[in-house]
């Protein structure tokens, strides 16, 4: 049988819903823009997957040629820089409402695990960069007593 909810429960539910909506709304504004007009730079869309042995990072780099991509990695960070084939001009860009031209991508990120950057491998196809970096793995054999 369905139980009729009390007024307090309904008010609690309503309050939670309002709080959630506000949190979502302000979360939007806490984010920084994915572009930097002073450098004419976009932050590329990226995805990071951690498997047992490696960290795989992909990045969407349209309008870029392979030779114009630079990747730098330390044991726990990765930086991707790329210059576009031709600048992309927008007449009135977003909140700043003036003409801007973007000609590069830049993204720095913290990796989810310590890696061996010197063993990293990358490929670039259809504007998608895929980097495989082996994780620092310490394997210790455990003796059975």
């Amino acid at each position: 049988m369905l139980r009729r909810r009390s007024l307090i429960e309904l008010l609690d539910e309503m309050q939670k819903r309002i709080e959630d909506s506000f949190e979502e709304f302000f979360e939007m504004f806490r984010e920084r823009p994915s572009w930097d007009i002073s450098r004419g730079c976009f932050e590329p869309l990226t995805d990071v997957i951690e498997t047992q042995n490696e960290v795989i990072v992909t990045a969407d780099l349209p309008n870029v040629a392979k030779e114009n991509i630079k990747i730098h990695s330390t044991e726990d960070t990765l930086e991707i820089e790329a210059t576009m084939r031709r600048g992309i001009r927008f007449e009135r860009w977003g909140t700043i409402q003036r003409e801007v031209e973007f000609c590069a991508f830049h993204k720095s990120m913290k990796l989810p695990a310590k890696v061996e950057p010197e063993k990293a491998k990358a490929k670039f196809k259809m504007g998608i960069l895929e980097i495989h970096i082996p994780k620092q793995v310490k394997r210790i054999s455990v003796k059975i007593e």
Partner: protein
Amino acid sequence: MSEEISFVEEEIIKKDTPAIILGLPDVGLVGIISAEHLVHALKMNKIGYIESDLFPPVTILHKGEIHSPFRIYGNGGFLLITSEIPIPPDILHQFARTVVKWAKSKNARMILALGGTPVPNREDIENPKVYATGSDERAMGIIKESAIEKIEEGVIVGAYATIMWECKKERIPAIFLMAQAFHGYPDPGAAASAVTAASKILDLKVDVKELLEKADEIRLKMRDLMKQTDKTMRTIGKAREYEIPPMYG
């Protein structure tokens, strides 16, 4: 706060048995990229919008004018619904029921949902394949006539999943076209395949050359929407689409 979702028609929609095309933010933004291309190619006019207090407080400014992110377009025997923001996960069922109820009120002959299906090796695929699923026998018949490969087993998650289910219940033939696409990156190539398949179903001639030529620009413009859509897709467990369904028999 009103919990209603309403269709507001700015022009009287008199179409007889229209086909309703849906282009919503989803995998690779295939739906919205395809919808935008179809609006231009079929010279569709904005004829209405969808509003609700349950939608995020977002308004789109275009050429100095204020627009709803949930818009309805029309021309000839076609209506098209598109959205420039992801549909909040907690209202997906209600949204689907409202869309299908509205389609029924328009005596729609068919609902055609345009979207993507994520493939892990998308960068190795030159021409993305399009698969389809239908809500009933009539829809399945159209898929067969159009020589589009039917998807036999799989999982659909999100707005299209709920819309397809509502169409099945309400006996409206609905077809969901799924082009092989990048999961979290805007995919105009997949959209071109989806538009080509949609043209077969709707018996239209739509050139996708411009869509392919402008692919890089579209990918750049759609980055922020893709980011927001990706967040929503994670919330609703979109990655389940990679799964094999456990049904047997």
